[in-house]
């Protein structure tokens, strides 16, 4: 088996130049698509008004008045459009890309605010980028500055009023108390709202979701040159190996080890090219490399001709990537397809990459990918056994 492994290494080495050329070509092409899409998306978003939904304001006349005033008089009306919605409706609209974010105003917010207690607003966005969050922060900073000015005016007005009413002895103390109360709230303005990102795809913003999706597509396609190594029209070598004790299991295992290793190099290189984070992806890339390598080996096993194998790999790769939301946002697909995508290898790989990018645990997806690999490997071994015995040119 060791010698067969060495032989596979030589075959890989011979093919690697072609693989690298194809990979470089694909990386350039897909990177160009990525850049073009992101640039267009950024341009569209920088010229459009952000639509933000306000949740929890419907029952409060004062808040509605405030929103109406902001939309007609405030400078923010040129960049932000505020609409009122229920939370479920706002969440659906956010997933569908109809709004950029929504703000949840908690019950009794205004009553508490009037008593000087600040309950944080919840800000829910699909993007972790600088766009919508920056706008909201700027707006709130401006509001806080106004608040500082007004509160100072209010403190001095209280002092004047108490002095004029003959309460000069307590005026200074009361002014200080009021100023402290304002200061306590204003200096605590980091707590004005909490931010929550739900993402367009598994918690990722548009750019990262696109990065993950295109990486999966890239990996599915750039291993195509390996078809020339693994598609066979004769099983003479496999028969001879079998007669010398290297059976189908050992043969496929040797091939998978080398193919998996080559894929791991490609996975890491691809991720490095996109995000300059190769070491981070090396470990997480192992189940991905194994899954793609075993899937491709299975394709090469069940096809007998190089052209059929390449066409099948392309169709299967692009098809599964499309359904899994690697090319097109998955939120636009019907719920049934979204459910299906979760169980496709490409969908799991995308979720795995998303987990790595977000720093989440990827154990679950890693295990699922390993299970896929075992399944594909088993099919490969079964097909190899069948071919060794029954392939044309042969036995019967």
């Amino acid at each position, binding site marked *: 088996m060791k010698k067969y492994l060495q032989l596979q290494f030589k*075959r890989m080495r*011979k093919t690697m130049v072609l693989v690298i050329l194809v990979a470089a070509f694909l990386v350039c092409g897909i990177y160009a698509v990525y850049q073009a899409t992101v640039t267009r998306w950024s341009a569209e978003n920088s010229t459009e008004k952000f639509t933000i939904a306000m949740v929890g304001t419907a029952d409060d006349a004062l808040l509605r008045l405030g929103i109406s005033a902001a939309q007609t008089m405030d400078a923010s009306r040129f960049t932000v459009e505020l609409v009122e919605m229920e939370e479920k409706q706002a969440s659906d609209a956010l997933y569908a890309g109809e709004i950029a974010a929504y703000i949840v105003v908690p019950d009794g917010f205004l009553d508490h605010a009037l008593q000087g207690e600040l309950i944080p607003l919840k800000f829910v966005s699909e993007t972790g980028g600088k766009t919508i969050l920056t706008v909201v922060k700027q707006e709130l900073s401006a509001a806080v500055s106004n608040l500082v000015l007004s509160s100072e005016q209010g403190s001095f007005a209280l002092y004047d009023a108490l002095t004029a009413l003959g309460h000069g002895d307590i005026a200074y103390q009361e002014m200080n108390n009021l100023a402290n109360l304002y200061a306590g709230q204003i200096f605590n303005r980091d707590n004005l709202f909490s931010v929550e990102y739900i993402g367009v795809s598994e918690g990722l913003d548009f750019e990262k979701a696109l990065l993950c999706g295109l990486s999966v597509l890239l990996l599915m396609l750039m291993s195509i040159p390996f078809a020339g190594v693994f598609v066979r029209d004769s*099983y*003479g*070598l496999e028969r001879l190996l*079998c*007669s*010398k*004790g290297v059976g189908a299991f050992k043969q496929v295992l040797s091939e998978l080890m080398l193919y998996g290793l080559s894929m791991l190099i490609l996975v890491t290189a691809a991720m490095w090219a996109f995000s300059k984070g190769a070491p981070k992806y090396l470990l997480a890339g192992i189940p991905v490399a194994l899954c793609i390598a075993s899937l491709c080996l299975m394709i090469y096993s069940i096809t007998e001709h190089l052209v059929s194998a390449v066409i099948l790999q392309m169709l299967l790769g692009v098809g599964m990537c499309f359904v899994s939301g690697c090319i097109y946002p998955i939120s636009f697909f019907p719920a049934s397809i979204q459910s299906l995508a979760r169980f496709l290898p490409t969908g799991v790989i995308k979720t795995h990459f998303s987990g790595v990018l977000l720093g989440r645990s990827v154990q679950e997806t890693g295990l699922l990918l390993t299970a896929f690999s075992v399944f594909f490997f088993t099919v490969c071994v079964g097909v190899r056994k069948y071919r060794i015995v029954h392939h044309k040119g042969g*036995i019967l």
Partner: protein
Amino acid sequence: MEIRIEHLSKSFGKKQVLRDITFSAGGGKCIGILGANGCGKSTLLSLLAGVRRADGGAFYFENSNLFQDEKRRQHLVGYVPQGTPLVEELSGWDNLLLWYDRQTLKKELSDGVLKVLGVDAFLKTTVSKMSGGMKKRLSIGCAMAQKPPVLLLDEPTAALDLNGKKGILQYLFQYKKSGGLLIMTSHDPIELEMCDECYIMRDGVLHPFAYDGNIHNLMEKI
């Protein structure tokens, strides 16, 4: 040296491909097995080579049953399957390294089996650029790695031109002369001429047949 095949049988589902195959042969002989396509010739060789398992029967070398001693069988039996057992994109040298260690390979190329086969002449050539005869000689070279006393050949000169056949048969004659036992399947009268014993396989049963060089008699029997 003697081999005995006793009561060998093999079925695929309900179809019995080999029935009670029994024969024996000694060193320095060539056994030819003939028969129509799909009659079970290659199945017989694949059972003896260990590519698949027999349903019943035994394969004795001297007095040990090779079906029960895989390691010994791997060492004693060489096998040249019908398809080329070579990696097309690699050179002859790289292909041979799968079966030989470096030192043995150099030795065999200078004065051993591979020298006799003339493999050294196209050692650096990529297999995909070799002729059919070269590929077959290289294939036999691979099968001879452990110098097995029994060599199984599945239609060794099929699809070769006369020159190619000549090179292969010359080597096989030499192998036989040195005490090796050849068991080959064939449709080719030229190959049959070097066989000491011939069998025709019909309905999964081996029937002894004396080939007298008359091709019409042979065709009637098949």
